[in-house]
């Protein structure tokens, strides 16, 4: 049975069950089938740059090479940080309580999203305290690693007071672009919109 994640907010700890969700869970999915001119089924394959070599799914592999172009066994690789120092591995976030810190919308908006989880309470836990805090449009973050490994991802806890979600990803490298001029333009008629005005299911 999968382990539950323990979150800690203001010293209160609560266990949550994670369920990964994606677009298919919300709107269904679309598959493509293709046929040739004679009505025979067509399959997708990879064509190499030579224009002749066809490759089936699974016919390729990722290799690690050194500066000379020689293949290196993965066991010989050493993970280092940006300063070249060897990295200490991080523990799985399921092994200890995860302290939630208040986060800013701007930090979340710079996240390169990898996965989204729905958070549910266990039979023993109660998420009301968390929901109450999420109602006020607050969001929280903590470093997250599913299985443990070389580095943490960033996890953000958000919600609408009814349901809570955890969005996991990498903090993005945003650049502030420079130059020393600014225009002076007036704006068009502006209008506040509701999130309900947008359609997602037909996309």
């Amino acid at each position, binding site marked *: 049975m999968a382990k539950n994640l323990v979150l800690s907010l203001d010293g209160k700890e609560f266990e949550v069950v994670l369920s990964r969700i994606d677009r298919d869970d919300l709107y269904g999915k679309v598959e493509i089938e293709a*046929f040739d001119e004679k009505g025979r089924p067509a399959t*997708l394959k990879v064509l190499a740059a030579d224009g002749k070599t066809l490759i089936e799914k699974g016919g390729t592999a990722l290799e690690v090479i050194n500066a000379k172009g020689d293949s290196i066994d993965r066991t010989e690789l050493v*993970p280092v940080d940006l300063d070249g120092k060897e990295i200490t591995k991080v523990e799985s976030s399921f092994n200890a309580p995860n302290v939630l810190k208040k986060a800013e919308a701007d930090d979340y*908006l710079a996240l390169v999203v990898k996965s989204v989880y729905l958070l549910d309470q266990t039979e023993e836990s109660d998420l009301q305290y968390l929901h109450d805090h999420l109602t006020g449009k607050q969001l929280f973050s903590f470093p997250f690693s599913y299985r443990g490994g*070389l580095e943490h991802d960033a996890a953000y806890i958000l919600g*609408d007071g009814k349901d809570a979600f955890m969005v996991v990803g990498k903090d993005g490298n*945003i650049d502030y672009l420079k130059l020393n001029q600014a*225009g002076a333009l007036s704006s068009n008629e502006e209008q*506040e919109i509701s999130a309900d005005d947008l359609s*997602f299911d037909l996309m």
Partner: protein
Amino acid sequence: MAINISNPNNRDAVVAVEGLVGKREVRYVDKKGGPTSNVRVLKADAEHELAVIQKKHKTLDKVAKVLVKDDPEVDMEKSGMFLTDTSKVYVSPGGILHLVEEFELIYKTDGKLSKRRPREKKPQNINSDIPVRWTGKFIKKEDAISRFVFTNTKQLVHINGLTFDFLFKMAEDLAKKDSLLLLRAGEGGDEPVVMNRGGKQYNAFLEGRVKGQSYCLLLHLSNMELKRPEGK
């Protein structure tokens, strides 16, 4: 990638779009501290896959023997070659196809097939004669983040002094509002954004930030709401 985008005054300009990448804090070196890189290599082409070998040799026993004896799964000329600039192609028993008929099979969330229809490949609409439209419709950041998942984020980049002014002003306006601007594309100016022909459609939002005389314009793309799926 380029985007033709209009400002609140319906003036448009073509600027660059770059993908937002996650901060990478780990890299791998070899035992001597030398740099390493990843490459994709060919294991076996379609003619050397097990199914083809099995067709030739009929029984699995014979296949096992021939695998040990002759290595028919290995193409000595090609196996291990670095793969770059690959493309995806449709293939039928007649070979590579240049004309295919595609259908979309649409499944409901319960897995049941709901519709089968000819595939419509929408053209990209971010860099055409019709600019992506500044709709003037704003949504507060805190509302947007609790309602949508931004599955893809890009950054708008100026390409010259004029477009610096153009984008800086946009970023400044948006930063003051502390809101995301809904963008729409297409002739009617009411369509979701399509980045590539036949690609996914996204609701696109523009966010602006300013720091001194520098700006950051983020294009947030969403095709998913942040909500509990039915039955979960």
